[in-house]
């Protein structure tokens, strides 16, 4: 099989994920896009492993590790998103702007999303 097929597919998947990371507003959608990017890399790893006929199967082993790390990442990531949602009442990434410098140069705490009581999130759970 031509190596260009999996390679180009991986590139396109990666860039799709890239677009999703940059363009999506909801943090969970961003996490999905990250999964897409990781899978594109996995595809590359597998394809090259097969192509090179590596006796150690480094590519496939690494793919397994990547999958495991992706699972850990999604767990931690979701926990963070939930925490943010509970504290801020929103999981919209472009509303989390505490790092922005205000025109008056003052502290940015208290700005951005209105701090919502945690009870709301708990009620949802």
């Amino acid at each position, binding site marked *: *099989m*031509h*190596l*260009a*097929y*999996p*390679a180009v*597919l991986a*590139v*396109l*998947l990666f*860039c*799709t994920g*890239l*677009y*999703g990371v*940059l*363009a*999506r*507003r*909801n943090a*969970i959608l961003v*996490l*999905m*896009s990250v*999964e*897409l990017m990781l*899978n594109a890399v*996995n*595809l590359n790893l*597998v394809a090259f*492993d*097969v*192509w090179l006929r590596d006796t*150690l*199967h480094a590519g*496939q*082993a690494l793919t397994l*590790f990547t*999958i*495991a*790390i992706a*699972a*850990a990442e*999604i*767990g931690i990531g*979701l*926990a963070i*998103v*939930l*925490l943010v*949602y*509970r504290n801020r009442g929103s*999981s*919209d990434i*472009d509303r989390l702007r505490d790092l922005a410098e205000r025109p008056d140069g003052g502290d940015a705490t208290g700005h951005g999303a209105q701090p919502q009581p*945690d009870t709301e*999130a708990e009620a*949802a*759970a």
Partner: protein
Amino acid sequence: MTLAATAAAHGFLSPTGVEIAFLLVGIATLGAALITVTTRQLVHAALWLVVALGGIAVEYLLLTAEFIAWVQVLIYVGSVVVLLLFGLMLTKAPIGRSPDADSGNRWAALVVALASAGTLVWVVVDAFRATWIDLDGAVQGSTATLGRTLFQYWVLPFEALSVLLLAALVGAIVLSRKGGEGKAPAADLRSGAARTGTAPREEQH
């Protein structure tokens, strides 16, 4: 797959059956991925992600990496997407079309993504124009082969990875606890994290 190994016999104009299958599945996968990152319905995005991940699993199969393919189905389709769906629900994601699914950054993101795609495709095609994968011979990714390799050569990274997963589990629990109270969300997340934690155990089989 059955073609001769001589390079002259290969060509884009005479695709093999595997190539055609790979191409078709790849188009389906890419389409699903595109819908995932563009749809306005958040739950649909998760479902289309299932399609995309499943497509990738099929591609693994076509590349003779069968073990990876089943792990992909198990972990991604089975647990990650479910976890994402739980996340969507926990954050009270709207059901149905939400007009603000994309941020104002969309056009810049599109430009960056297209430029990256162009550059990478150009580089990849330029580099691997005349490279073929020989899929004949011994199966590369059978469970037996991979298991042997994994526990012969990669056993130390593998165990380090299990420690990492444990740390992630603990981290997720700590993050989702809130100051002594708030047991309900913590318990919920624990179930999710536990699900993640089971994944490597399944891999070992």
